[in-house]
């Protein structure tokens, strides 16, 4: 891209490279960039300029979306360290953890109403919270394989939380 837009998402928003992103600053700066670069700002300009603006705005959107989501942000932090995760193929190999996941999945299927769903949600949140702490410690200690493992485990929790949300909607709809 011939555009002088910082490719590093943290630099783009002038934020410290860390998992704990200042949401208010991120959002302010995101809007500030879009105010100047969104293609609508170039509605009267020529097609070349509109195309460049669309490229710039798409990059800013992608960066914002990444840093605004804890999982995406963590994945991006590891990516900056040269550690990659393939969504399709990579998964945790910790058998004890996988057994526990099966148990959680069964627990989810057995939910019979909103109160049970709330309690189950609280449990997921607590266990995921512990893993996030784990990720943070590994990242700070530059133990990349361990950080990666923690993140892979967290993906299970994200999926469970999404499924739980769908269940709650079912319960809400009656």
């Amino acid at each position, binding site marked *: 891209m011939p555009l*002088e837009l910082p490719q590093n998402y943290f630099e783009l928003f002038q934020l410290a490279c860390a998992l704990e992103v200042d949401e208010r600053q991120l959002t*302010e700066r995101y809007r500030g960039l879009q105010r100047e670069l*969104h293609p*609508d700002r170039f*509605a009267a300009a020529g097609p*070349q300029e509109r195309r460049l603006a669309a*490229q710039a705005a*798409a990059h800013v959107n992608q960066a914002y979306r990444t840093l605004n989501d804890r999982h995406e942000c963590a994945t991006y932090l590891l990516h900056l360290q040269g550690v990659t995760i393939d969504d399709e193929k990579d998964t945790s190999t910790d058998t004890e953890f996988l057994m526990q996941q099966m148990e959680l999945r069964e627990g989810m299927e057995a939910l019979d109403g909103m109160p049970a769903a709330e309690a189950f949600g609280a449990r997921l949140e607590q266990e995921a919270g512990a893993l996030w702490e784990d990720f943070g410690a590994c990242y700070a200690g530059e133990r990349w394989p361990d950080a990666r493992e923690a993140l892979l485990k967290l993906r299970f929790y994200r999926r469970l939380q999404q499924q739980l949300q769908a269940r709650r909607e079912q319960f*809400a709809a009656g």
Partner: protein
Amino acid sequence: MALLQISEPGQGGPRRRACGIDLGTTHSLVAVMRDGQAVTLPGAEGHHRLPSVVHYGAESETVGWPAVQAAADDPDNAFFSIKRSMGRGTADLDDAHDLVEGSAAGVPRFRTVAGPKTAVEVSADILSALRARAEEELGGELDGAVITVPAYFDEAQRQATKDAARLAGLPVLRLINEPTAASIAYGLDQQDDRGLIAVFDLGGGTFDISVLRLSRGVFEVLATGGDTELGGDDLDRILLAWVQKECGVEEADRAWTRRILQVVREAREALSKQESIQVDCGDGRVLTLTRDELEQWSAPLLERMLQCCRRALSDAGLEAGEVQEVVMVGGVTRMPYLRREVSKFFSREVHTGIDPDRVVALGAAVQADVLVGNAQDQDLLLLDVIPLSLGIEIMGGLVERIIDRNTTIPAHHAQEFTTFKDGQTALAVHVVQGERELVSDCRSLARFELRDIPPMTAGAARIRVEYQVDADGLLTVEAMETVSGVRAGVSVKPSYGLEESEIEQMLRESIEHAEEDVASRALNEQQVEADRVVQALRDALAVDGDILSDDAERAGIEEAAKALIQLRDGTDADAIRTGIKALEEACEPFVERRMNRSIRQAMQGHRVEEFQEQD
């Protein structure tokens, strides 16, 4: 030289002519700014709402009320609710119109006495009628228009809308989503506190729910949901079935159906103000319909709408109770039942202050005025999302997601492919839209064929495919073989849309039909485009002329501009087109530097904001 004189852009110049258009399923509207206020424009008969009805006669076509009248005697040549067919294939239609024989699966062609018609052409006729209203009000050709579409419209439906605008000769600045337009009209952006807003939009044929966050002029759509086949029409069909059963009508002909639909729609609307109504079904049959009955029959439809609301809220990561404002849009939301139930769902009063039929067109007019450059001081920016995920077909008929639903647009995704045969020079990519895992369960959008890949041994080529979704939600695909740096040619075969050559053909036919001179129309189009490009360059140089690298660059640009201006006053449309291209090429480095300056300013803007925050 006079051409590139420095002048302040957008100041002292004449106001540019812009309008907002709500192209609705049952009714359409056009609005413009008058004395700083958005107003909808009435037609010759004094009605603001133009029925979205077109009738094709052997001699001439009519749009709106005359078409409604003509349709009573000749329903076979009239189109109602054509919006439902936009971007749809033959298999999707439930319209009773006869299709032309040999009609392609992708773009149905309906038989009329005036020849075969596609949904795009019918919509173009509605848009032309609205364009005429706006041009009469503004006293000349339009510089730009904003057209609204349901937030939940897929790419094919958006593309069809844009194609219709092109046929109607409308310069489209932007397609914007109906709920977003409505929230602009409410001026909710004027509030200082950051608000979370839900827009509940039930039209004749579509339902949309959008959740937005507004902050200092920035409208950020967090999530959108809906159903493009759910609307007031569905209620009318339930009522129609009831009348048919009560009156013992076994075989309903088209004229009877149209008449009863009209009668039940009026009855339904009247029930917003009274508890019961007599429904005159003709032949001396009068039925009584109560509000209670109507509400009972509406309940399953309401549940489908609330289901969409729940999903949109969940996508936005919000609970219903967090929403601070609820805006009701669309005539059907006058039903007390809907207002009551939606209010209950969000646990707050709903906004109904602006006429729900006009609010979308009014908001579109405000946005058109900003985009065309009349309202320079107005800080208004829309950040919209793509309503449905985009994916490509991979082995086994599965979908690989490339852009998730509710991603803010413009959005971009890049992917690398390789060849699987020696000497392979082409590659096909099938793009679909939807949330399901199987290609057969999603909407097919288009097949992109990438050509001119340099022949190499299997697996050696690296083909980088870039998908770009623009601010209108429209997709373009580019591809390059990265080992050789050769750009691939891309040809698009839309699954449910018109190809470029078909649109050009239609343009020619519509011109012939209008007895205009084809050549003069083409010339005029190129002249308008040349003026636009020169004006844009003038504006750009006025602001950023200092970043021209040297006199040689300025001279190159001026020379190309001078050449274009000379060509523009000639009579050769193709030469003007070439001149425009030459000028754009001459400007390319300047345009890039200019964009980089915008980027630097935007980045520095951060620091200014921080400074202010510390005050």
